[in-house]
């Protein structure tokens, strides 16, 4: 039968648990309990139901043909497999996640390069003892005094002193 018995992929729950960020722990726990419940339920059910002993019934049931009819219908009966509606959605979700993670990683890498740039600048700075105020304004542009906006000393609003 095609489609049945999609083999269960072994999930390494320990490694998974490591990578869960702390703010999503609750969701992870819920997922795990669901998984455990389903595994237990599956394990409790036998894979095939036991075979019906037709010979016994043929010998004992008096009504002629009833057992034969049952047997014929029973072996002809095909139990429909439950239709899988969710796997496609999950695959779609996975693709989406792949895309968004790629974007996130890009952004993250850009941030890392920014941080490293800053780091380089800070590390290659001259020591404070040898700086003039001009050098300080170059190294930390936020300390530059705005002499156009505030032409009089101290060149910044009094509240900022």
């Amino acid at each position, binding site marked *: 039968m095609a489609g049945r018995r999609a083999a269960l992929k072994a999930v390494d729950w320990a490694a*998974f648990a490591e990578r869960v960020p702390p703010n999503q722990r609750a969701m992870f726990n819920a997922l795990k309990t669901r*998984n455990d419940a389903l595994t237990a339920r599956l394990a409790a059910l036998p894979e095939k139901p036991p075979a019906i002993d037709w010979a016994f019934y043929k010998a004992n049931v008096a009504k002629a043909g009833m057992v034969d009819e049952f047997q014929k219908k029973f072996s002809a009966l095909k139990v429909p497999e439950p239709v899988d509606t969710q796997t496609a959605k999950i695959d779609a979700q996975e693709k989406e996640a792949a895309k968004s993670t790629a974007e996130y990683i890009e952004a*993250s890498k850009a941030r*890392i390069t920014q941080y*490293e740039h800053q780091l380089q600048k800070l590390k290659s700075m001259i020591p404070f003892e040898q700086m003039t105020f001009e050098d300080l304004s170059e190294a930390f542009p936020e300390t530059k005094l705005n002499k156009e906006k505030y032409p009089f000393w101290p060149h910044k609003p009094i509240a900022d002193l």
Partner: protein
Amino acid sequence: VLHTTRPLHTTQRSLAPVPPLPEKGGEVRHGLIPEEFFQFLYPKTGVTGPYMLGTGLLLYFLSKEIYVINHETVAAACILSVIIYGIKKFGADVAAFADKLNEEKVATALAVKNEALQALQTAIEEEKKEQWRVEGRSYLFDAKRNNVAMLLEANYRERLLTVYSEVKKRLDYQVAMQNLKRQKEQEHMIQWVEKNVVQSITPQQQKESIAKCILDLKALSQSAHAAV
């Protein structure tokens, strides 16, 4: 340190940044006269040269009355002595205090810089960690798919089981019905046979059988008496 030795704009690269200022100012003797003067006169007049020059100049000014001694000399002497005494006594402390103020400013700036460095490092590590975390997303989808597969499988098995149990129930019902009917028929037959037999016993036969029973009993009791 004699600052005449500082090279400034002497090489080709005269527009390069000037090296930082030295920590201490040039050396002076007696707080007034730079050391370079003494070094300048040393080759010709030795160690005592500048002092001789000074003494001679002073005596010249006094004797020729180029510098006149009046009340302002006394005032100058008093003021100067007080100033020199003050500087000698408190100079070092004041200098240390001023240096400390400066040190604190520099230390705050340095602390800010170090904190910024630290924060950047941790930020970089955090980003790397988040990237590592993101790699684990395949686990999530595997787990979800597993859940779905397990649910489907469990459902299918349940259905199979239901079919089986229903069919078995029906067949068992048939068998049980038959057994029950047979049992009832047997019972009924037995009862009917018994009833007929009892009916067929005529009063005449009853009397005969009772008489026979009494005779048998008598015989038995006699044999029992005999046995006892």
